[in-house]
């Protein structure tokens, strides 16, 4: 991500429920942010808004000190971000084709494409699965395909929605390792999770989403990492 990205006054309403009412949220290049919150608190909705997949009722985006209306910001968000679903969808084709999808969609020439896909497959430790149908993979393998498929398009930032929910231990560990590798590569990442313990060790910042607001959680002291006894301070208005 070049320069920081700031979301202001994001409001999302379903029926007569104001699900999100975020004063401001800033993403800095190379930073990894955790957003925790109970089930139904709006994490998925917030991440989809940040990826441009979902339209909020209100909100502006500021990039490189230029404030954009939502209409203007949406295509930028869409082209800069990749959003990963909690249960990633595998296209009904080989692992190779799944990973190649974004390059084909953006019309990368075939000569370059194949080389980049093989490189990405090695990165995700998927070489041995290449010809397999991605729909037949295990949960952990699917998550690896999803992360590799996202990384290959070189997004400005990655939005990971509960990336380890409903996974066994081994797969979870592999997923943490890949996320940390992405961090080391300088990728800007936002992770949502309702079980925060594992992630709070690897992220730079932690916010707790409650009643539509983001509250900054202090990650300095280890024993406060659990949601139930987290130190919650309101997120400062306008930074």
């Amino acid at each position: 991500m070049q320069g920081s990205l700031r979301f202001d006054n994001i409001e999302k309403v379903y029926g007569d429920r104001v699900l999100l009412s975020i004063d401001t949220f800033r993403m800095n290049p190379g930073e990894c942010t955790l957003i925790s919150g109970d089930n139904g608190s709006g994490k998925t909705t917030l991440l989809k808004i940040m990826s441009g997949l979902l339209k909020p009722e209100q909100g502006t985006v500021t990039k490189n000190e230029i404030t954009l209306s939502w209409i203007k910001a949406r295509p930028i968000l869409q082209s800069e971000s990749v959003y990963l679903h909690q249960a990633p969808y595998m296209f009904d084709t080989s692992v190779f084709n799944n990973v190649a999808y974004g390059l084909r969609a953006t019309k990368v020439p075939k000569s370059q494409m194949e080389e980049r896909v093989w490189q990405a497959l090695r990165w995700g430790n998927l070489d041995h699965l290449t010809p397999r149908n991605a729909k037949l993979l295990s949960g952990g393998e699917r998550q690896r395909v999803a992360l590799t498929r996202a990384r290959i398009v070189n997004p400005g930032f990655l939005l990971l929605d509960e990336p380890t929910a409903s996974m066994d231990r081994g797969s979870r560990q592999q997923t943490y390792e890949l996320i940390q590798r992405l961090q080391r590569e300088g990728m800007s990442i936002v992770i949502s999770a309702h079980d925060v313990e594992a992630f709070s060790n690897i992220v730079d910042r932690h916010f707790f989403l409650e009643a539509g607001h983001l509250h900054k959680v202090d990650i300095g002291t280890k024993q406060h990492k659990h949601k139930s006894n987290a130190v919650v301070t309101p997120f400062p208005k306008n930074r």
Partner: protein
Amino acid sequence: MQEVYQATVDALFLLIAADPGIWEIIGISFSVSLQAIIYITPPSLMIAFLLAYGNFRGRRALVSIFHTLLAVPAVVVGLTLYILLSRNGPLGDLKLLFTQTAMVIGQMILAFPIVVAMAHSALQSSDRVIWETAKTLGASPQRAMITVMYEARFGLFAAIVAAFSRIIAEVGCSLMVGGNILHHTRNIPTAITLETSKGEFAQGIALGMVLLILALVLNLFLGSARYRFEAA
């Protein structure tokens, strides 16, 4: 009983001996119905997609209109088209009445709502996550649409097969706007209807068997495709 037995033997003989008369009729049926299906498939799939994924006013009303059109009898479509194409009708100058083109148009009208309605339910029940995944990986709306259709391909294929099965066996419309003219607009269902009434049982049974075999083949084909899909 003896008569039916004899007619069936004759029917098998007609088919096996490749009687040119009967194969011409079969050829006309396939040519007309395949043309109709080929012409309506792309627009029907597009409309089904827009109805499933679009977000515009009147979407639900349109869906129920297509479901209503499913129930329109073939003879009513035939009658309407006949009036439009008859010499004094608004489209009379086109001189299309009693041509294969008129039959193709009639079958297109019959197949259109079937493909739209069935493809719509296949796409409606397909996962929204497919669309979002395609979009977030940088696909254009057109590309994302093709991806969604590819993932729902067995349902779409079933819609096309169902429409084809209906129109290739449909008699009301073809008879009215085609006229059952030998070597020209006589197809399987019109031949069965009219020739049987003249006592030509063997031909009727032979053609009926062709339709049955076709139905069987299409269903086996669909079934194995679905099986492979669900195994995945």
